[in-house]
């Protein structure tokens, strides 16, 4: 039966080629398109995370809801000690955030001033890269302030200029100091650029009495896919008053937006597949309907309906498999290549800054599992498409079939 199928395929060259091409193109397209979609989501996420939010963040419970000095983490060292033993964590850093008043000679503005570890931060977030003027912070920068561009504009200060800070320390007492503007950054996110300022912790801690304290600890991972398992691991090692959250909770709107985008992507893809499905079905139908006599003859010489079904099944199987065997590696290679060398669209980051896209690259995601289920879908579609032709053929009575025009 298999040999017969093979012979048939080779006989009806043009039809076979067309079916082959259709399957080939659709498989290729599917793999590449999904790789692109997943890749862009992944990069959106990575970029958004890189800007400031960590893949995982560790808080004292209630800090996120109520906030305030009462819910600060009080033993950063012991938590960081535990984190250093957990696999999969690339790096971590603690941040001490406080709201206060920043004033220049003319203007005062409420701002969020954060004590950071500049070296660790540079490894984890985009803060250093978004520098547009002056210098980024160093571990020993002292009273240097690294401020968002819009805030700097509002205060009307220049590099080297003085900015007064008034706020409350970690014990709610007065904290006040004079800072120097050392660097300006621009992330493109207005909220951030108009409200945020950073100081090195070594200096800020003395002012705020916040040594070994933190608002939260931000963690970067080696592999974003492991986020849930690592998070569970972290949670198990922490005390009961500490909670550990992943970006999925921290950035819920973004997660949902990505899901919506995926949904739309799949809807569009499904349109494409409906069309392909029909085309393959038509071809199968044509194929079959012009061979009615042939099948009639086969039936007359004793082939059962079941065997006819098997024959046609084999024909489809051979064609699909051949096409897929060609398309899968090709698609995979394309996905792999572009995952390592992303497509660069100049100016894309300017356009999509607000959506958290800060690079001009559009990488693809290479994932064998995804590719496999893509391929499986195509297989299924192909087989579904010959059901109608097969039942059509089998509906003929053998003699009737041989008289078919």
């Amino acid at each position, binding site marked *: 039966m298999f040999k017969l199928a093979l012979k048939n395929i080779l006989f009806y060259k043009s039809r076979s080629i067309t079916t082959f091409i259709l399957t080939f193109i659709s498989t290729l397209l599917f793999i590449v398109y999904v790789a692109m979609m997943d890749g862009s989501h992944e990069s959106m996420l990575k970029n958004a995370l890189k800007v400031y939010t960590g893949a995982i963040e560790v808080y004292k419970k209630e800090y996120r809801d109520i906030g305030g000095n*009462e819910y600060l983490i009080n033993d950063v060292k012991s938590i960081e000690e535990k984190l250093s033993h957990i696999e999969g964590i690339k790096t971590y850093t603690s941040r001490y955030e406080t709201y206060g*008043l920043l*004033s220049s000679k003319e203007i*005062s503005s409420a701002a969020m001033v954060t004590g950071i570890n500049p070296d660790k931060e540079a490894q984890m977030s985009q803060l250093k890269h978004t520098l547009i003027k002056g210098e980024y912070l160093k571990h020993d920068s002292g009273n240097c302030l690294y401020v968002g561009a819009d805030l700097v504009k509002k205060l009307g200060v220049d590099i080297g200029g003085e900015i*007064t800070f008034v706020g409350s320390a970690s014990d709610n007492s007065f904290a*006040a100091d004079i800072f120097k503007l050392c660097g300006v950054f621009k992330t493109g996110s207005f909220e951030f650029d108009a409200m945020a300022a950073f100081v090195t912790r070594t200096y800020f801690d003395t002012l705020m009495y916040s040594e070994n304290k933190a608002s939260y600890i931000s963690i970067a991972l080696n592999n974003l896919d492991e986020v849930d398992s690592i998070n569970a691991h972290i949670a198990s090692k922490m005390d009961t008053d500490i909670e550990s959250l992943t970006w999925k909770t921290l950035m819920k709107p973004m997660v949902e937006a990505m899901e919506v985008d995926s949904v739309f992507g799949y809807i569009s893809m499904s349109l494409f597949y409906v069309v392909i499905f029909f085309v393959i079905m038509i071809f199968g139908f044509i194929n079959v309907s012009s061979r009615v006599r042939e099948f009639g003859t086969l039936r007359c010489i004793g082939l059962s309906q079941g065997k006819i079904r098997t024959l046609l099944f084999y024909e489809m199987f051979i064609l699909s498999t051949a096409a897929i065997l060609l398309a899968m590696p090709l698609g995979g290679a394309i996905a792999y290549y572009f995952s390592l060398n992303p497509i660069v669209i100049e100016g894309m980051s300017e356009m999509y800054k607000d959506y958290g896209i800060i690079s001009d690259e559009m990488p693809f995601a290479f994932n064998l599992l995804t590719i496999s289920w893509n391929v499986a879908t195509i297989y299924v579609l192909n087989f579904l498409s010959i059901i109608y032709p097969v039942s059509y053929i089998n509906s003929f009575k053998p003699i009737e079939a041989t008289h078919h025009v």
Partner: protein
Amino acid sequence: MKKVFIFLLLIHQISFANEAEDIIKKLDNNMRGVSVYMQIEMRITSLGHTRVMKMQSWSEGTKKSFVKVIYPPRDKGITFLSLDSQMWQYIPKIERTIKIPPSMMLQNWMGSDITNDDVVKQSSIVEDYAPRILKKEGKIVTLELIPKEDAAVVWGKIISRIDTNTYTSQKDIFFDEDGKEVRHFIYKKVKKFSKYYLPTYWRVQAIDKKTSFTEMLLEDVEYDKAISAQYFKKSALKRFSR
């Protein structure tokens, strides 16, 4: 007969209302006088530990007030000036005067349960509320204060327990619009200063934060003593800091 009865009822209501207003006015007067000087010890307790601050305060009417921090030593010399609705702060450590923007004024004062707004808008109790007597237990009158139609106050109502011996409040409960308690003020240790009575122990507590509260102890209170106009100028901030 009916007419007389209604008439009597009306008079009774009016006099009651008048009495309530009277009580409130006297209460307010006790708080304010024409000018007041006092030393305040503020104890802010939250999550187990207590922070203590001592200040000296000069105020004239409702629009002018000058405060100087004298304890802890770290914060000594910090001064605040509030004139009309504007507020400035001077910090000796960095030798700078800054203007506190309106937005920050409406927020909690130094981590306590009192807002700047409370401090600045105290006068509103007479103008913004319509008082009504709820019950009388000897000399202790419980008043219900309902905000007037257009009054710009966030409370749904305030219930005050007032000692009419001294015209000072023993307890004030603040309710939101739905009638739920939001915070209460407790007043104790009433003392007499010239012709004014003032509770010298205050305690403010938010209902939903059981473990944090703010206490204020008032000492060295002096009413209607002439306060130099120098205190209510911007120059005062730096001048009286030392």
